[in-house]
């Protein structure tokens, strides 16, 4: 009997379906319970600076998803041959290569957005999400789960980015994705755009409020005093 169970276990290990529940969890978890921005405190710098309008923040989110997913994949493939002492330099080199690729693609196809993002595409290299996931996940897991983990965390990051930028663009300039949403009649009736929403500090306050809402719905995330 014991022989039989071990073989079935082996079969399960070898033929784990590509989207098994465990792998799905890797994508879903970062969207809420272990969101990189609001729970793990990773990758905040760029999240706040690019969120004045929705378009650049969506481009930024896509770039981060690509970079995290593929650098997770590469590092996970290399994980057994990287000497421990110089791993940070190896990781940074892989990430920097990915970022250069993304940067050149953006410059070639969406030049105006790439100008708007200015140094922040370059700063994906030091975006703690990428390094944090490489250290915490890709160094100890197989390529496919690592790839999914990268996509999941990129999505979680993108979700917050899009939320924050939607609020800021709606209240700050009355538009969404560059199209006017607040009708002209409202402006004539005395409605004003909230200038505060365009200023950088508002991004911090919005993220603070998102954290507040998320934690009051999900009390196990509340920090002890």
């Amino acid at each position, binding site marked *: 009997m014991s022989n039989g169970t071990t073989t079935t276990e082996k079969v399960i290990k070898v033929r784990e379906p590509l989207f098994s529940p465990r792998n799905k969890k890797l994508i879903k978890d970062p969207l809420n319970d272990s969101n990189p921005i*609001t729970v793990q*405190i*990773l*990758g*905040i*710098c*760029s999240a*706040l*600076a690019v969120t004045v309008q929705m378009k650049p923040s969506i481009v930024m989110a896509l770039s981060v998803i690509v970079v995290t997913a593929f650098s997770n994949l590469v590092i996970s493939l290399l994980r057994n041959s990287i000497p421990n002492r110089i791993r*940070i*330099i190896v990781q*940074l*080199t892989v990430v*920097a*290569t990915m*970022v*250069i690729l993304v*940067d*050149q693609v953006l410059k070639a196809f969406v030049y105006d957005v790439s100008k708007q993002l*200015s*140094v922040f595409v*370059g*700063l994906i*290299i*030091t*975006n*703690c999400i990428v*390094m944090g996931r490489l250290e915490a996940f890709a160094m100890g897991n197989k390529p496919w789960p690592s790839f999914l983990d990268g996509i999941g965390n990129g999505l979680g990051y993108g979700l917050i980015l899009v939320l924050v930028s939607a609020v800021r663009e709606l209240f700050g300039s009355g538009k969404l994705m560059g199209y006017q949403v607040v009708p002209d009649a409202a402006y004539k009736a005395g409605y004003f755009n909230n200038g505060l929403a365009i*200023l*950088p*500090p*508002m*991004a*911090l*306050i919005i*993220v*603070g*409020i998102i*954290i*507040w*809402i*998320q*934690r*009051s719905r999900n*009390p196990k995330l*509340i*920090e002890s*005093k």
Partner: protein
Amino acid sequence: MEHVNIFVKAVFVENMIFAYFLGMCSYLAISKSVKNAVGLGVAVIFVLGVSVPVCYLLENYLLKPGALSWLSADFATVDLSFLSFIMFIATIAAIVQLVEMVVEKYAPALYAALGIFLPLIAVNCAILGGALFMQEREYATLGEATVFGLGSGVGWFLAIVAIAAIREKIRYSNVPAPLRGLGITFILTGLMGLAFMSFMGVKL
């Protein structure tokens, strides 16, 4: 006078944290006590003060279009600027490693106090951000680039020490439970950012 202007601008007007949100991750993670915040802040000033001028030299004598013309006239059209990310980050990682070894050898007490924060500076976006802003703004001399690096470091130092002091005090207040810790720190930083915006437009 130009140098003073750049310094004041880097510390107050273009503060790394309150105007650009660079280095937020360690800023949020290490600001629980003033003592650690001071240690990390000093390390950041030092690393920025060294790595920005080094990156300036790299940029002007290696990477910029035509920067290689000091080697021979044939290289006048070579443009290596697409390599700047990888060169800058490698330089910063090397300098951080160097700083870590020097501190470990000559100031073991400080080394023990800083612990994991020292190597983490390599991935502090404020450092790479400083180098990239230096590249974007095209400072005229090495002196200006150095002053900019030091100024950004001092600005970061001020910000982290200030928030650490507030967080030490706020422990005695009754913050709503879901907002405790991270949430309130975000909102506080936002309010401090608003205060720092009053420096905007200051010219010397």
